[in-house]
């Protein structure tokens, strides 16, 4: 059954081909979601096949063909089926399928309907290549593929200058990360003579001593790649702008799947990263700081989708924190639950925009639960999940991360995580209260809003995702062995993923006793409740008006609402010098030296010569004849007297 896995890639590829070459709406609306759904079914079948194997054999390679034949440097098109990759496959195709279905409603009136599904299917293909490949070159292929699809989809409405610019920004920023990632991967390739995971991971502990500079450099380079793709500091700037794309794209690519590629990459390369403790600390620190940083911006942003984008950056920060402290399965667990609840919230935002004439400013919404109840109440599930309220999914995964961070002695990072949890609960509650509760702040005028619930093909994915946001955490966290209790290592997901994260010579995870764990849970849930309560006081009860807070904390407010001036700083430090260099190259080097001196010089030289010789060509035939005669005479004279 495992050998079926190539179908999961080929079916969406077939869909992409059909939608590209036979772009008809009535075809795309069936084929687009259909192939992804079929890929999901394939994923489930493979999962069953994988579970039938004993845990220590749950890693199979499925060979397809030799991509680059070379003497001893062969690169194979071959797929790795193991718990990690199959979980990612199920997330990508499962959430992907729901979002495809949703898109049939959301994009219903778009003239480029089939092209949209072509891009989406292509994205699924690239993402599956990324997660299923069994070597770094295939991962890189998928990595660039998803980047391309992201670019195409952010710029889907390219006639809007903001969308075109956002697409360009995403592409350029990702290029910076990808550049580092490429060097890291090529370095590995050069060192091991192969890009194959199995060879690299089995030989790495012998080749590198733990903490050796080379492995630290390689992993840091790979991590820079991850910060680009997964929107972490300092390369996160593209993700908020990426919200210019259609909302299903934001949900699928910029929340649930593509941005988690960095997390997946590090989890997949955990052997290398664990050999470089310094890199691990960098990963954890960057993750925690990004989580806090993005959350502060989300506190004050007025745009529905951008709050969600900053929230995504923040949640990705949690995942990197988990990965960095070595809690790999907790990180992947959070990746899974986040995919559900963040996709849910993005689709909810899309549904709001759909029903409210593309309004995204939360201050011009209000009381929407009256007009779009399904959207509103499913959104509440996502809100409670991300706020970490039990028994919703986010509670379990976030709590695992925080507990493990604390248990491994990173108290500072844990504290940042808890503060971020409170901020997260606050800013999501702010969005929920402003958009779905309180009084109506949109106008009912002629061109304005007639808020209405979305059609069924949009609400059903919302309902499914809402259910997943409720139960997936608890379900995956069920203890496998009842005697061992509720520790993270004993959960369903950790047990399932364990074969992917095995490593010899790793220090055993420190034990957390039940009391500590309960205290930690109480603190993180308390933080979430505190955030919600504060938002309730400010935005529903209005005991403390928001304007009062912005005056008191004016410096902070300015800092947050200008996004810490990061865009401005990058503009001054990077964009302007780059533009100046480009201007210099274009004006001085290109136009001056190349066009002016080299090309213009050659032309001027020819012009000079031809001016000197031009009088010969008078146009009078008799003159030519005369010259010919002189020539002939000269020849005769030459032959007569010289020879």
């Amino acid at each position: 059954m495992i050998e079926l896995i190539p179908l999961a890639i080929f079916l969406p590829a077939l869909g992409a081909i059909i939608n590209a070459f036979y772009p008809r709406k009535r075809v795309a609306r069936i084929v687009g979601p259909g192939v992804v759904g079929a890929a999901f079914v394939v994923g489930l079948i493979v999962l069953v096949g994988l579970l039938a194997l004993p845990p220590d054999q749950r890693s199979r390679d499925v060979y397809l063909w030799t991509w680059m034949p070379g003497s001893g440097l062969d690169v194979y098109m071959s797929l790795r089926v193991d718990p990690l990759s199959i979980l990612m496959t199920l997330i990508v195709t499962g959430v992907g399928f729901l979002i495809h279905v949703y898109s049939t409603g959301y994009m219903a009136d778009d003239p480029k309907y089939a092209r949209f599904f072509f891009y989406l299917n292509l994205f699924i293909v690239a993402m599956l290549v990324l997660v299923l490949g069994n070597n770094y070159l295939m991962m890189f292929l998928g990595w660039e593929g998803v980047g391309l699809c992201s670019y195409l989809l952010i710029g889907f409405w390219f006639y809007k200058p903001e969308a075109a610019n956002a697409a360009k920004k995403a592409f350029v920023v990702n290029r910076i990360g990808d550049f580092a990632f490429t060097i890291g991967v090529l370095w590995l390739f050069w060192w091991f003579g192969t890009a194959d995971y199995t060879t690299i991971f089995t030989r790495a502990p012998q080749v590198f001593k733990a903490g050796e500079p080379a492995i630290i450099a390689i992993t840091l380079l790979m991590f820079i790649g991850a910060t680009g793709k997964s929107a972490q500091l300092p390369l996160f700037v593209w993700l908020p702008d990426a919200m210019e794309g259609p909302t299903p794209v934001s949900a699928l690519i910029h929340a649930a799947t593509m941005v988690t590629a960095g997390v997946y990459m590090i989890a997949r390369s955990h052997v290398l990263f664990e050999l470089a403790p310094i890199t691990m600390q960098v990963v954890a620190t960057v993750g925690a700081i990004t989580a806090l940083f993005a959350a502060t911006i989300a506190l004050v942003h007025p745009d529905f989708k951008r709050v969600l984008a900053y929230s995504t950056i923040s949640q990705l920060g949690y995942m990197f924190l988990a990965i960095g402290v070595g809690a790999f399965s907790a990180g992947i667990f959070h990746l899974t639950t986040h995919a559900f609840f963040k996709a849910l919230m993005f689709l909810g935002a899309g549904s709001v925009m759909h029903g409210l004439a593309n309004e995204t400013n939360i201050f011009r919404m209000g009381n929407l639960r009256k007009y779009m109840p399904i959207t509103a109440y499913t959104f509440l599930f996502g809100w409670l999940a991300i706020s970490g309220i039990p028994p919703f999914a986010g509670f379990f995964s976030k709590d695992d991360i925080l507990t493990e961070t604390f248990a491994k002695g990173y108290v500072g990072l844990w504290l940042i995580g808890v503060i971020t949890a409170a901020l997260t609960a606050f800013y999501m509650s702010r969005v929920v209260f402003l958009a779905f509760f309180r009084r109506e702040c949109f106008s009912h005028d002629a061109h304005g809003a007639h808020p209405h619930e979305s059609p069924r093909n949009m609400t059903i994915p919302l309902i499914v995702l809402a259910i997943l946001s409720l139960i997936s955490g608890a379900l995956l966290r069920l203890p496998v062995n009842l005697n061992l209790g509720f520790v993270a290592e004993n959960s369903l997901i950790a047990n399932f993923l364990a074969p992917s994260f095995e490593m010899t010579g790793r220090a055993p995870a420190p034990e957390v006793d039940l009391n500590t764990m309960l205290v930690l849970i109480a603190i993180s849930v308390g933080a979430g409740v505190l955030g919600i309560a504060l938002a309730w006081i400010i935005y529903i009860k209005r005991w403390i008006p928001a304007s009062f807070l912005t005056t008191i904390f004016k410096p902070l407010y300015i800092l947050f609402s200008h996004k810490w001036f990061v865009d401005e700083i990058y503009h001054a430090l990077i964009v302007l010098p780059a533009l100046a260099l480009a201007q210099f190259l274009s004006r001085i080097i290109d136009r001056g030296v190349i066009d002016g001196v080299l090309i213009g010089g050659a032309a001027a030289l020819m012009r000079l010569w031809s001016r000197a010789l031009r009088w010969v060509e008078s146009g009078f035939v008799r003159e030519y004849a005369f010259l010919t005669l002189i020539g002939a005479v000269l020849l005769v004279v030459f032959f007569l007297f010289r020879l």
Partner: protein
Amino acid sequence: MIPLSHYLIVSAIIFTIGAVGVLMRRNAILIFMCIELMLNAVNLTFIAFAAYQKVVEGQVFVFFVITVSAAEVAVGLAILVYLFYQRLTTDVDDISTLKG
């Protein structure tokens, strides 16, 4: 027997007349005729040499020259006729648009 030099002198005179005609005349038809004159002057030298040296190659060459000049006249006159249609002139000095 007439010495060879006589033939050569006559041929040189005819050739010079032809060459001067090509240079001096402005009417294209006359230029053609002068070219024919030059060609036939050359033919005369060929024949003379062939007769004096008792070889046939010179005579064969003359046939070739006649053939080629006939072809050349055919093409040239066609061009001339067409030129006359276009410009109503056969004066070569009026046709000087091909200057550099």
